[in-house]
C-alpha cells in the first residue's frame, strides 16, 4: 500500500467526474438518433437542419468534455 487519503480522494473524484462523459455519450446518441428519425420522415428538410444538429452535438459533447476537464484537474492540478 502506498499513497495517502488525499491521493485516494483525488483518484476517486477523478473517476467519478469521468462518469460525466457517459452522460455526454447518451446525449449525443439521443440527438443523432432523433435527427436521423426526423430526417428519414422528411428527407427534404434534413439538409437545412444539419448545422443545428452540429450545434446540438457540440453543446452535449462540450458538457462531457467539461467533466473530463474536471477529472484532469483533479488528477494533475489539485
Amino acid at each position, binding site marked *: 500500500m502506498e499513497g495517502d487519503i488525499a491521493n485516494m480522494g483525488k483518484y476517486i473524484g477523478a473517476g467519478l467526474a469521468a462518469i460525466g462523459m457517459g452522460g455526454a455519450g447518451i446525449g449525443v446518441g439521443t440527438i443523432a438518433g432523433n435527427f436521423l428519425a426526423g430526417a428519414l420522415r422528411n428527407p427534404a428538410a434534413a*439538409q437545412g437542419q*444539419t448545422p443545428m444538429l*452540429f450545434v446540438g452535438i*457540440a*453543446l452535449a*459533447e*462540450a458538457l462531457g468534455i467539461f467533466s473530463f*476537464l474536471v477529472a484532469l484537474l483533479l488528477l494533475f492540478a489539485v
Partner: protein
Amino acid sequence: MAAPDGKAGETDRKSLDELGARIDAARQQLDGPKREQTTKYKTLNRAWQMVVELVVSVVVGGCIGYALDWAFGTLPLFLVIFGGFGFAAGIKTILATARGFIDEDDTASP
C-alpha cells in the same frame, strides 16, 4: 524558346487556348465526385471543431475570471461570472460557425 513573332506565336497562342479549355473541362468533370468525398469527411471534422470552440471559450473565460479573483481575493465570484460569459461566447462562436456552414453549403451545392 522561340521569339513570339508572326505566325509561330499565333499558333502557339491558339494551342495554348485549346489546352486551357481542355484543362477546364477536365477539371469540371473531376470536381463533382471529389467534392462529395471531402464534404463527407468535413462533416466529421465540423462537429469536433465546434466542441473545441465551445470548450476553449469557457476555459478562457474561466481563466480570466480566476485571474480577477486572484487579483481581488474573491475566489468563486468572478470565476463563475466569467465562466458564464465564456459559455455565452462559445455559443456565439459555434452559432457563427454553423451559419458559415449554411453559406458554404449554399455556394457549393448548385
